[in-house]
């Protein structure tokens, strides 16, 4: 008997509290009539962790772009929320969920790396929120299994292009015949870049003599590098982010490997090991030495505010934010579907990193530059058009 009455009591309490909640909802707190409407934008970037310099650059440029707009776009006041994904895919999903469900953002700028942006794109596509990634270069960000995720865009070129450019450069400019490749088997960015590099390098008559995988947590590369040292390849392709690349590069030189190092835009950081990576080349989105006036203006503006030359990540983040603001203005609405349509219809947008028009997959069509690490600085080498 006692047990039954306990259950009854519990049920009563539950029902009672439910009625209170329902009462509150129905009671009708007066709908606030805001004089000026507010649009919320989210930024997701790795502000800490293994690629934190990427996150810092992106955040700086994002804030600069918003500031320039006077915190206003069309009839809306801009309010933004910044979230840190630490370059961990699960964390990226968590913060994207939070931005969408709790902060109710209309659009998200981010994230920076492909391995974080791909899961974010799934979440945002399902929720119908616009995402523009400044820098995620893997094709799967906007298209998966042949299906276009129509809320997702980016401001950078994609890995097939970048990998191909690196392979062509190795063959034509460096005269390389053989290449060795090391890649992170758990990272979409490095796998993609490796695949496209290999394809183009072999198609151009080169030979890939070693293709070695490692895990993100690995720090000991001695076995693999000793093997590669025996094979004496002309180039060592390292398509990872600056931290890992620096560690591998250092150990490679320790093992007596003399090959030219080659990589992708993940190298673009002031924290790369300048000594170990000296003489290496990498593909990138822009060079501050580009003579176009909009580049000069941008470099001056950024340097004046943050005291350092903007890297490609900052530049792309600035372009991505500007693109998003332009789309919101054009849409005249904070409805994500309207912003998406406005974004897709943008053509010939004059961005710092070049003129941007989207192809049917939400990827901009633009050129790449090749930079060299030399004497503690990045030197502009050449521009490659698509």
């Amino acid at each position, binding site marked *: 008997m006692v047990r039954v009455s306990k259950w009854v009591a519990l049920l009563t309490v539950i029902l009672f509290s439910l009625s209170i909640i329902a009462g509150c909802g129905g009671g009708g707190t007066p709908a606030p009539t805001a004089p000026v409407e507010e649009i919320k934008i989210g930024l997701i970037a790795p502000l800490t962790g293994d690629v934190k310099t990427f996150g810092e650059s992106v955040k700086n440029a994002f804030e600069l772009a918003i500031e320039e707009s006077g915190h206003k776009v069309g009839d809306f006041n801009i309010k933004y929320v910044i979230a840190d994904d*630490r370059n961990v895919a699960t964390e990226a999903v968590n913060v994207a969920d939070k931005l969408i469900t709790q902060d109710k953002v209309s659009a998200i700028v981010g994230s920076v790396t492909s391995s974080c942006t791909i899961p974010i794109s799934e979440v945002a596509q399902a929720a119908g929120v616009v995402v523009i990634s400044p820098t995620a270069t893997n094709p799967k960000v906007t298209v998966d299994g042949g299906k276009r995720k129509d809320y997702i865009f980016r401001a950078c070129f994609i890995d097939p292009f970048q990998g191909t450019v690196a392979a062509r450069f190795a063959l034509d400019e460096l005269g390389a015949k053989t290449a060795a490749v090391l890649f992170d088997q758990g990272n979409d960015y490095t796998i993609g870049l490796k695949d496209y590099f290999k394809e183009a390098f072999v198609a151009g008559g080169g030979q890939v003599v070693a293709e070695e995988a490692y895990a993100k947590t690995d*720090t*000991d590369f001695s*076995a693999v590098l000793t093997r590669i040292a025996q094979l004496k390849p002309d180039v060592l392709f390292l398509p990872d982010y600056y931290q890992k690349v620096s*560690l591998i590069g250092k150990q490679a030189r*320790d093992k007596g490997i003399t090959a030219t190092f080659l990589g992708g835009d993940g190298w673009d950081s002031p924290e790369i090991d300048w000594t170990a990576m000296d003489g290496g080349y990498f593909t990138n989105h822009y060079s501050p030495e580009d003579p176009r006036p909009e580049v000069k203006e941008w470099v001056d503006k950024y340097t004046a505010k943050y005291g350092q030359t903007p890297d490609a990540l900052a530049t792309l983040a600035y372009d991505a934010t500007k693109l998003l603001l332009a789309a919101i203005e054009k849409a005249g609405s904070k409805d994500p579907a309207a912003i998406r349509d406005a974004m897709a219809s943008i053509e010939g947008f004059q961005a710092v990193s070049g003129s941007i028009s989207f192809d049917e997959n939400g990827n901009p069509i633009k050129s790449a530059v090749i930079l060299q690490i030399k004497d503690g600085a990045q030197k502009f080498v050449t521009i490659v058009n698509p």
Partner: protein
Amino acid sequence: MEYFLEQVINGLQLGLVYALIALGYTMVYGIVRLINFAHGEVFMVGAFVGYFGFTNWNMPWPLAILVAMIICACLGMTIERLAYRPLRYAPRIMALIAAIGVSFFIAHFCSLKFMFGPNYRVVQRPFEEVYWSIGGVTISNIQLLIFVTVVIMLLGLQYLVYRTRLGAAMRTLSYDHDTARLMGVNVDRTISLTFGIGAALAAVGGVLYAIAYPQIFTFMGIMPGLKAFTAAVLGGIGLIPGAMLGALIMGQAEVMTAAFISSQLRDMIAFSILILVLLIKPTGILGKTQPEKV
């Protein structure tokens, strides 16, 4: 042949670093029958303190290692006092779960901004690398340093365990806590010191690891910790020579797999060896089958 020898040296370097961590696991297990999963995190703290020592505090590196050892010994004893001692007479699974909790707590706590921060740090080696070529095989002074340190640590540990009063107390404890107490052994103090010594060894391992593979971050302890634990089990947990042997086998297995088969399989093969040994000889390679104590 030179290629093979060079790979053997690579494996030796990795195995010896594992050995330094595995010794701590095995000592603690031998005495309190507890797998101290927080050991990998002590290793991480050791690496960071060493790094701060020779970069931020401008210490000569041997002093930095000493400071790391002292700080980690204190940390090890604190962990024992706060997390394990209250659970000493609780079912063993409780202490095991507490150990996993402590491990995650330390890694996440240290990654907070006011502690070490979540960023990767590049370690500038505190001395110039020197390479010697002996018959086509290259050996570096870092490898030599690791080798010498591990040998000294191992000899020191053997001396401690078999020649000192503390060692005698530790060995007595490893048989039976209650009898040891009746014989006048201070159980709490001995266990505390065991944790301290194990942690100091992990600190040396951490600093050497940071010098050999010059990049550190707050979650770096997890993988080497797991590998060293595996090594200790492989050799026969509770036995000091067993930890040493297990670590050397793990190091060679990993490097040889990467060198001659595929780098993708390295962890898989290393752990397969563990499973195989446990299936054939559950007490580990050097372990003796003991009758269950009542």
